[in-house]
């Protein structure tokens, strides 16, 4: 039996089946009011951190860092006309990482006292000393200056926790009603709310207090034709965001209409859940009778809410340096983009492909001031004019590629997990020339426009992939002609990005994202956003996924 199954057997399973299956939600269930109470004061946190750092140094650590974490989460789930679950959770504890003679050790505790943190620091040193026996290459940690006492907060207008639960329930039930009225037979909707209060301190002299907020409203509407036995779903076109509850206040200035004839709406930093749900109900029903695609080569015009997932899988993961080096070989896999491959200077994509990494974009879920090993976050190029120019790396990896500094993308899903290299936001820069999705479609002779993320799968070295979507529309001679179903495209990373014919301009730029990017053993989740504008790829292989059973 897997741990996941065992956790599912707690008393919570009866109250709500969803909670145990959500990774990264380590918790104590609390009253919603608790989510508004402040955590420990920075003066207290500094004292606690110093107790751990001093104990680690005394025990022989050459470097140590302490993460005091308080995670607050709330989720609300509904189906049709009823609430399924409302749970508020809190998790509080400390993770301590030490370096002894070039070997890492890590220990964590939920008993947050000076004495226990000192003891936990010593336990981490003991683990490092035990691991030292089988160490082959000592860790080389990139130098990092201490920042002193600093703080950072996600720029939000209203914390989601300040909004009464009833108001959130009412919004979800109204969205459900909108979808049901418009043609759906069933709908599940949910609202994830996250606040990570993180205090980082290290022997480099940093004391960093951060207050990080994230939000994700989502739903799946299903239409059923009992007579034919057919059913189809359409999922929300929202994105998880690094924003407060203001994301749920509709604003037409933050909306982008899809190409003429598609009846789709994309969302920037404000989302209209009711409008999207109504459209989803109508589209789920329409999917029951849509034309099934004829397989073949098509030019694809991909909406940012779809393309983000393709960027994630085919650029985000293969450019993680730990994967490139083989540290994930037994689980997520390795990468085609090895150091040797990069040295050949081969094209990753066409000259139109410019991909950037960052943890800075406002509204993105990757946005923080400092990473989980005390490095100020930044922006750097991954692919420039179609060539791979850099990887994603943290302090103990920088020297491997001859760099002196970390990129600031270390992350741990909670205080009880050790930090490691995680994907920052990885985004495709929009085109420089003015271009709207309508203008892009005009140039396509035989193509398919795809909106929303669907099924996704890619091999362990990130060559071959297959993606579905939420909505598909045929393009013929520069015009959207009709909606399609049963569409998936298969390609190869370099071939696909090599077929990139350009992107729409900045005015079309939007973020896609997830809370649940998984990596590592034991697995940890991480939040990541991917920005892009609508982009065209020529001559991509499209398959038909309809089967008879």
């Amino acid at each position, binding site marked *: 039996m897997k741990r996941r199954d065992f956790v599912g*057997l707690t008393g919570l*399973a009866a109250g709500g089946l969803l909670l145990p299956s959500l990774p990264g939600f380590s918790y104590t269930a609390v009253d919603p009011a608790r989510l508004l109470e402040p955590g420990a004061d920075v003066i207290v946190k500094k004292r606690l951190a110093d107790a751990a750092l001093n104990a680690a140094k005394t025990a022989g650590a050459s470097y140590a860092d302490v993460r005091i974490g308080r995670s607050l989460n709330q989720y609300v789930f509904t189906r049709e006309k009823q609430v399924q679950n409302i749970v508020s959770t809190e998790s509080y504890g400390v993770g301590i990482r030490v370096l002894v003679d070039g070997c890492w050790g890590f220990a964590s505790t939920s008993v947050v006292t000076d004495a226990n943190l000192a003891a936990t620091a010593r336990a981490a040193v003991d683990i490092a000393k035990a691991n030292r026996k089988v160490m082959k*290459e000592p860790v080389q940690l990139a130098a990092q200056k201490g920042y002193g006492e600093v703080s950072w907060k996600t720029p939000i207008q209203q914390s989601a926790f300040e909004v009464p639960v009833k108001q959130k329930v009412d919004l979800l039930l109204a969205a459900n009603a909108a979808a049901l009225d418009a043609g759906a037979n069933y709908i599940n909707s949910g609202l994830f709310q996250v606040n990570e209060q993180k205090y980082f301190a290290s022997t480099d002299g940093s004391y960093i207090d951060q207050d990080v907020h994230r939000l994700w409203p989502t739903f799946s509407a299903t239409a059923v034709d009992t007579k034919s036995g*057919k059913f189809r779903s359409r999922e929300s076109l929202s994105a998880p965001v690094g924003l407060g509850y203001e994301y749920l206040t509709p604003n037409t200035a933050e909306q982008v209409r899809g190409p003429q004839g598609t009846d789709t709406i994309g969302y920037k930093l404000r989302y209209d859940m009711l409008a999207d749900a109504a459209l989803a109900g109508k589209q789920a029903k329409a999917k029951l009778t849509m034309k099934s695609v004829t397989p073949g080569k098509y030019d694809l015009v991909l909406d940012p809410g779809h393309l983000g997932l393709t960027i994630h899988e085919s650029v985000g993961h293969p450019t993680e340096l730990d994967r490139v080096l083989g540290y994930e070989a037994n689980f997520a896999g390795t990468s085609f983009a090895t150091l040797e491959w990069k040295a050949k200077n081969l094209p990753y994509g066409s000259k139109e492909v410019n991909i950037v990494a960052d943890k800075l974009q406002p509204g993105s879920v990757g946005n923080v001031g400092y990473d989980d090993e005390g490095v100020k976050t930044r922006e750097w190029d991954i692919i420039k004019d179609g060539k791979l120019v850099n990887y994603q790396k943290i302090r103990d990896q920088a020297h491997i590629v001859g760099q002196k500094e970390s990129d600031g993308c270390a992350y741990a899903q909670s205080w009880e997990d050790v930090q490691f290299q995680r994907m920052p936001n990885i985004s495709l820069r929009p085109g420089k020339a003015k271009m709207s999705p309508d203008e892009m479609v005009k140039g396509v002779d035989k193509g398919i426009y795809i909106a929303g993320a669907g*099924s996704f799968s890619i091999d362990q070295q990130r060559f071959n992939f*297959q993606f579905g979507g939420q909505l598909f529309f045929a393009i013929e001679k520069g015009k959207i002609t009709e909606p399609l179903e049963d569409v998936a495209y298969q390609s190869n990373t370099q071939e696909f990005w090599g077929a990139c014919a350009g992107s729409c301009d900045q005015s079309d730029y939007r973020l896609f994202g997830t809370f649940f990017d998984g990596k590592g*053993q034991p697995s940890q989740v991480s939040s990541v956003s991917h920005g892009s504008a609508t982009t065209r790829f020529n001559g991509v292989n499209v398959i038909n996924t309809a089967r008879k059973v």
Partner: protein
Amino acid sequence: MAILSQTEAQDILKKVLSFSTADECEATLNGTIGGNVRSARNTISTAGAVDNVSLAVQSRFGKRSGVATCNEFDEATLRRCVQRAEEIAKLAPESPEYVPLMGPQKYLSSPASFAKRTADITPDYRAQQIGASMALCDAKKLSSAAFFNDSNSFIAKRNSKGLEAYQQLTNLDFTITVRTPDGLGSGYAIANYTDLAKFDAARLTRVAAEKAASSVKAKAIEPGKYTVILEPAAAVEMLSNMMRSMDSRNADEGRSFLSKKGGGNKKGEKMFDERVTIYSDPTHPEVPDLTFAGDGRPQQKVTWIEKGVVKNLYTSQFWAQKSNSPDIPPPSGWIMEGGTQSTADLIKGTAKGILVTRLWYIRAVDPQTLLYTGLTRDGTFYIENGQIKFPVKNFRFNESPVIMLNNLEAVGKAVRLGGNLVPPLKIRDFTFTSLSDAV
């Protein structure tokens, strides 16, 4: 603290229930002690330990319910936890799917679910096993990445209607990927046991190493429909995905592969080859499991598919009552009846086909037909005249377990994987849709 005896656990739970002022109250204690070690590039990369006990209290007033949790067990904390659950319950909306808590239940006994040898695993033992495995690969100039994870857990339950449950379980998982230094060969092995006595890291390392060495210089052959032999590690996830889709409510609501045209579900229909029989049994000596579900319902021996006919679907208590159907909880593991042939025997009996070690990144494409896509990985070989001829490049597949189990050619001897008993399967017309350069 992590592993409480039945008496210790029930004493805490009795105390919790004594603090309740709600109409109904249920308390669950859940504890795990365990550890893991991970290696890559023939060196240990991380090691960790787990030592947790937590209490979940569910309080109910009428149809309103609230849950609170804590991980300290002094009287004041327990009392606060119960109060919090009651406060949350009072604020909650009424559930239209409310079902009263169950009274005393009779559970099967599954003593094999706990093995002392597994519970006694130490960090030194883990490091030693990984170390020995790495040494084997070092000697062959191969690179290994492995993960060893073990746990000793207990779960105890008690409610205000008199239900009482307790069980202890152990588990260990080991996976290893071995690669050739040129990156052109990769092999994999996996094991999962309740009892450490069955574990042999050296044997698994040799299997992965042999697959790595023999998968170098793979030839590209055209994608298309092939007869395949899916080793248990390749078959397990496709079958698990199907078993997880056997919920009766989804089927009755018309949104499952088990929904019937015109309404209702396909229970009683023959959907698969007659050699397909899948059941669950928490007392099975090879895959002993919990004898009660998360909500306290007893886990019995249940036949899900018998000779190709759908015999049972699982359900929530609410849906069982509403649809007047048998009240069967979802199982945590499943057993597919196998034959006597090993994978090697299946290869011998194959004129032309592909041997698949493992499938990877499997994702649903169409829930209507249970169509999944994914790729072969870590050892894919061409078979001709009963022999492995050469390694082939990996493929992407688009296939449904429903179609697979209709195109069944042979079923081999089942082995334990992920808490299930999974046979190797020989299947005709398995659909590979493209080639992958990944090794």
